[in-house]
């Protein structure tokens, strides 16, 4: 097994969802925070316009990415995104998004998605860190704050021999410190705002120390330009409304009660 690389400070983001403007802004923000490496937890496509635009940005910045369910589906030419929705409304919008993204992503970029690892392990100082997309056991498992019990997280730490787990997939950030000091961080997503009425997105900066220090960093970007481009591409008005208002209008049915109650729709 390769020894895990040891870092002092890293930036981690998830869920790009073709939002290349937010990606540019995130990379710029991370560079100014003295990070040694930038990681992406997957799902490059979906939701936004011109999916090919994110790939050169990721490569030029040397982003160390893993594969999300979307990336796996795109690379393998699957029929759907494998997002894990069960509700008809959620699946309706997921289908529109996947068809657009699949059609507008080059073969070269799809092949690149197929080369990404499923997970990564690093060390932040003394802390062993496992990066995954959904959960350590399933790529499209939703780890929402209100549906992820401490008993399950303790089990993950034991089964996967780690001190910290970083994940994404849900699109809403959260952090939990377990009684033994181990941590789980859902780093959120930079592709769409997190259903709080704000148009900015979020990523995470982690710094080593006695305790692992976690900072959620807001990213403001030119969301109006993105919205206009989405209109030009004929993407659903519901998607565009989310970019302009910060409230989710689609893929809402998968939200647990607490998270759903906080949103407008």
């Amino acid at each position: 097994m390769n020894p895990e690389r040891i870092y002092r400070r890293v930036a981690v983001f998830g869920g790009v969802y073709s939002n290349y403007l937010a990606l540019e802004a995130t990379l710029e923000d991370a560079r100014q925070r003295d990070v040694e490496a930038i990681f992406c937890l997957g799902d490059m496509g979906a939701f936004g316009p011109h999916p090919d635009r994110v790939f050169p940005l990721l490569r030029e910045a040397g982003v160390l990415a893993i594969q999300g369910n979307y990336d796996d589906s795109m690379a393998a030419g699957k029929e759907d995104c494998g997002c894990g929705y069960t509700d008809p409304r959620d699946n309706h919008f997921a289908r529109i998004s996947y068809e657009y993204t699949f059609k507008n992503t080059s073969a070269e970029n799809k092949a690149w998605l197929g080369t990404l690892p499923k997970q990564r392990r690093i060390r932040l100082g003394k802390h062993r860190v496992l990066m995954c997309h959904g959960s350590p056991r399933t790529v499209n498992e939703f780890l929402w704050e209100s549906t992820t019990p401490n008993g399950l997280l303790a089990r993950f730490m034991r089964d996967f021999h780690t001190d910290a787990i970083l994940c994404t997939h849900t699109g809403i950030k959260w952090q939990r410190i377990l009684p033994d000091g181990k941590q789980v961080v859902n780093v959120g997503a930079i592709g769409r705002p997190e259903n709080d009425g704000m148009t900015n997105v979020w990523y995470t900066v982690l710094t080593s120390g006695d305790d692992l220090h976690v900072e959620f960093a807001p990213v403001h970007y030119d969301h109006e330009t993105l919205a206009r481009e989405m209109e030009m591409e004929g993407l659903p008005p519901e998607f565009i409304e989310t970019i302009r208002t910060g409230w989710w209008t689609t893929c809402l049915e998968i939200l647990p009660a607490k998270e759903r109650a906080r949103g407008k729709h």
Partner: protein
Amino acid sequence: MTTPTVPFRHLATLWIQVTGTWCNLQCAHCINSSGPTDPWLKSLDTRTVKRYIHEAEDLGVKEIYFTGGEPFLHKDILELLAFSLAVAPTTVLTNGTKITEAVADSLADLARKSPYSLEIRVSVDDIDPDRNDRIRGKGALAKAVRAIRLLYARGLLPILTATEILQAEMPEGNGMYDRFRDFLLTQGIAKPRVKIIPVFPIGRMAQEGGGLLTEEMLRGYDFSLLQCTETRVVADGGVYCCPILAGLKEARLQERGLKESLTSCRLYHTACVTCYQTGMTCKNF
């Protein structure tokens, strides 16, 4: 012919058949023939339920579900929900008839105090009172809708859960899902949540001579689509492989311990074909 088996993956959901088959309704399609008299499956006592919840926590359970029968007939249901919500996100499946203002207040209080989500699924089969009540009993729709409104007014977001039993009688146009959703919107439920489930050939809908799964049918099949790979049910008599088959002797895996029940189970029932064909899960999502 050999009965196929399905491997176990991990314990994601624990179901607790807290009132056995004791219910104040007697629905025509009930999967376990629940009713008000002589339940064939007894309620679980409070201590037993807490013991199983503790064990499930150690095993890394992700979600806990209370079902029956009608869970709100259990004398300690609110205490049990509070206990469960301290451990994991918790869902209760109900016909809504016992949800008074006071009960709704208590549930809202429980939800507020827990870091985990409390989900309440209220069963309805149609928005037309005559058709619904033909399946579920006189006055059932009005009581269920009242429960949904009481819960929603307190910030809870109940999930209307319906079977497809009346699908053939639905008017042309919108599908069942949109019909329920639109109905909830007219009731002032601005965040309507709907789950539709198939009718199972079991309980009061049992059929003679239904088909069974074969190993041939399961060749190359993604077993993770079957909920019995990640769920267990505790009910009178022990631990069973899934919520649909709970209480049936052939589906029993253990008399006591949850941990010992995390093994492969047999897909022996015609109801297993329904899960196989529809990708059905009893989970919320």
